[in-house]
């Protein structure tokens, strides 16, 4: 700072100038920020396409022989198939076709289901959204509450217990936990009767009840998969909220709040938590990658008809177009979520807006 006196006076003068009208988050340089983050996301998306293309179209030795492995095919038929699939074109040409097709929603056709990949994905989208959505909501609420309590009185028995449990749960393989719960609640063990929860799927086949009944039936099927996911991921939120609160604990503004005569829980709730919450909010979005991994295995265990289970089904053969489709969609969603996280943080934190 060159001249503190001048800077101080200049600051006073600048503040005296009327500030422009408009919603707060919108005012200071929002559009440049959005533009730069958007560009970053687009580049990530393109890179992802390159990686996907490399894995699925460049690496496999010869998709045609993989495709026709179990059917005897004449060389002429294979050549025709090659032409049809476009694998005889040069690499860059295929890549451009690939990008073009992907952006217009054409993800190819599944080898085993004789259906377009995009239609398969569209069918399976809602169950995954439902599962991930409900798990996130419950995990966030549970994790934040536990994290705040643990961090506020860190070192206490409560804190150590919840940290220990979180650490252990992180070490548990999601699918295994799912299987254990499956056995426990469907086959039953000890005092737990069998058949408490359905073993598979999203709804009972042939269910004929009312709309409300169907919702209840879906919810009944949702319990175990959701429980499994929650158990594995809530620990992340506990950790982030706990360390955020601990970071805030030594802050002077908490002393100011106490000096004003606020109760301890008021100080925590009104002052510490909002500050600690900021990093946690973005973590919720950034956790999506972990959530997707969990969803893939949980859906598989419970045969929950979502994108994760679809990925597992694509591994049979392997069904490369379908696998590629799920890869692109899942990775693309994570990129979008990261972008939303950046934008949301900016809207929420007044200090970031000043940049």
């Amino acid at each position, binding site marked *: 700072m060159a001249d*503190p*006196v001048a800077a*101080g*006076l200049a*600051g*006073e003068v600048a*503040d*005296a100038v009327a500030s422009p009208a408009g919603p707060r988050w919108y005012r200071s340089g929002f559009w440049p920020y959005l533009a730069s983050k958007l560009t970053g996301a687009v580049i990530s998306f393109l890179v992802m396409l390159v990686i996907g293309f490399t894995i699925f179209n460049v690496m496999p030795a010869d998709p045609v022989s993989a495709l026709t492995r179990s059917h005897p095919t004449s060389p002429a038929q294979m050549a025709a198939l090659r032409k049809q699939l476009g694998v005889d074109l040069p690499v860059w040409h295929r890549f451009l076709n690939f990008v073009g097709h992907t952006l217009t929603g054409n993800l190819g056709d599944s080898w085993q289901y004789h259906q377009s990949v995009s239609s398969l994905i569209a069918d399976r989208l809602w169950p995954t959204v439902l599962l991930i959505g409900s798990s996130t909501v419950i995990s966030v609420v549970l994790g934040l509450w536990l994290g705040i309590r643990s961090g506020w009185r860190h070192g206490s028995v409560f804190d150590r217990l919840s940290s220990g449990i979180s650490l252990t749960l992180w070490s548990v393989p999601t699918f295994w936990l799912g299987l254990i719960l499956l056995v426990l609640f469907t086959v039953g063990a000890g005092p737990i009767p069998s058949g408490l929860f359905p073993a598979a799927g999203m709804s009972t086949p042939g269910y004929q009840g009312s709309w409300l009944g169907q919702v209840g039936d879906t919810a009944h099927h949702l319990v175990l998969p959701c429980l499994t996911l929650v158990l594995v991921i809530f620990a992340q939120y506990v950790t982030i909220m706990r360390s955020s609160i601990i970071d805030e604990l030594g*802050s*002077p*503004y908490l*002393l*100011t*709040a*106490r*000096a*004003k*005569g*606020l*109760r301890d829980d008021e100080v925590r709730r*009104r*002052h510490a938590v*909002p*500050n600690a919450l*900021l990093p946690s909010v973005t973590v919720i979005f950034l956790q999506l990658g972990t959530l997707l991994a969990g969803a893939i295995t949980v859906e598989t265990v419970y045969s929950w008809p979502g994108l994760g289970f679809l990925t597992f089904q694509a591994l049979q053969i392997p069904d490369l177009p379908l696998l590629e489709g799920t890869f692109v969609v899942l990775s693309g969603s994570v990129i979008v979520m990261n972008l939303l996280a950046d934008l949301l943080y900016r809207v929420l*934190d*007044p*200090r970031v807006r*000043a940049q």
Partner: protein
Amino acid sequence: MSLLEVRDLNVTYGADVRAVRGVDFALDAGQTLGMAGESGSGKSTVALSLLRLLPATATVTGEVRLGGEDVLTMGWGRLRAVRWAEASIVFQGAMSALNPVRTIGEQIREPILLHEKVGVRAARERTAELLDAVGVPSRRMAAYPHELSGGQRQRVMIAMALACRPDLIIADEPTTALDVIVQAQILKLITDLVHEAKISMIMISHDLSVLADTCDRLAVMYAGRIVEIGDSRQLIEAPRHPYTKALSSAFPKIGDPASRLAPSGLPGDPPDPSAIGAGCPFAPRCPEVFDACSTREVELWPAGPPDSARESACLRVLPEFAEVPA
């Protein structure tokens, strides 16, 4: 009866760190008291202990009578009602003493809504009045702390401290983080407001010159004790304790060539609060030390004319040691 009476205040952190070792003073309504000393002398600890704001690791004993009630033995409910409404604090470093994600208006309103039975609209009006009184345009109520300059933030802290019309304001190094010109503005603001509203004030600073102008009385602290207390003018012009002499000579007198040549500044460091020995704690650094200083316990003795309330904790003010050579 005085507004504030502190008797034998002792604060110990943990088992052996004695930050405050027997502090007594009184403050009448409308009076201002300055507390000076190096960092670690215990002055901020005294200030925080007046409202029981020290962390749980601190053991506080003694008496702090605010308006007749002992703060240290009050119930929690009463304490929370007393905080801010009867005595408030202007903290140093307003950037970190203000909540970064709340607007300054909300933060000023908060104690008003807490302590007074008024609605949000009335609180908002009062906030606007307060901001105008401290020189911050009231339309900046919706600004966040980081959007203001350092001087403005400190003004906001002052406005906040005045919000519930307290009887006593404790200003803990209110100008430390500011540059010189803004410092002068803030000091003038504080003293004007305090005089107008007839509020008592305790101002804490390591800067003696700041306190000399703004406070009626001055208390100098060293190693957790008050070593000299009295009328501020007299204390600066004729200090009766070697430490006070060293502090006041650290600031050159403009126009006096002698002070530019004489070395000021005190060698050595304050004693470790967990290992304070016998005798006067200032003895190791004192330029006027003699034998008895390391063995005789010192306390505040009268050091001026009988009704001047001037005291000093130096053996030299006792008639038997008045002429001992250094």
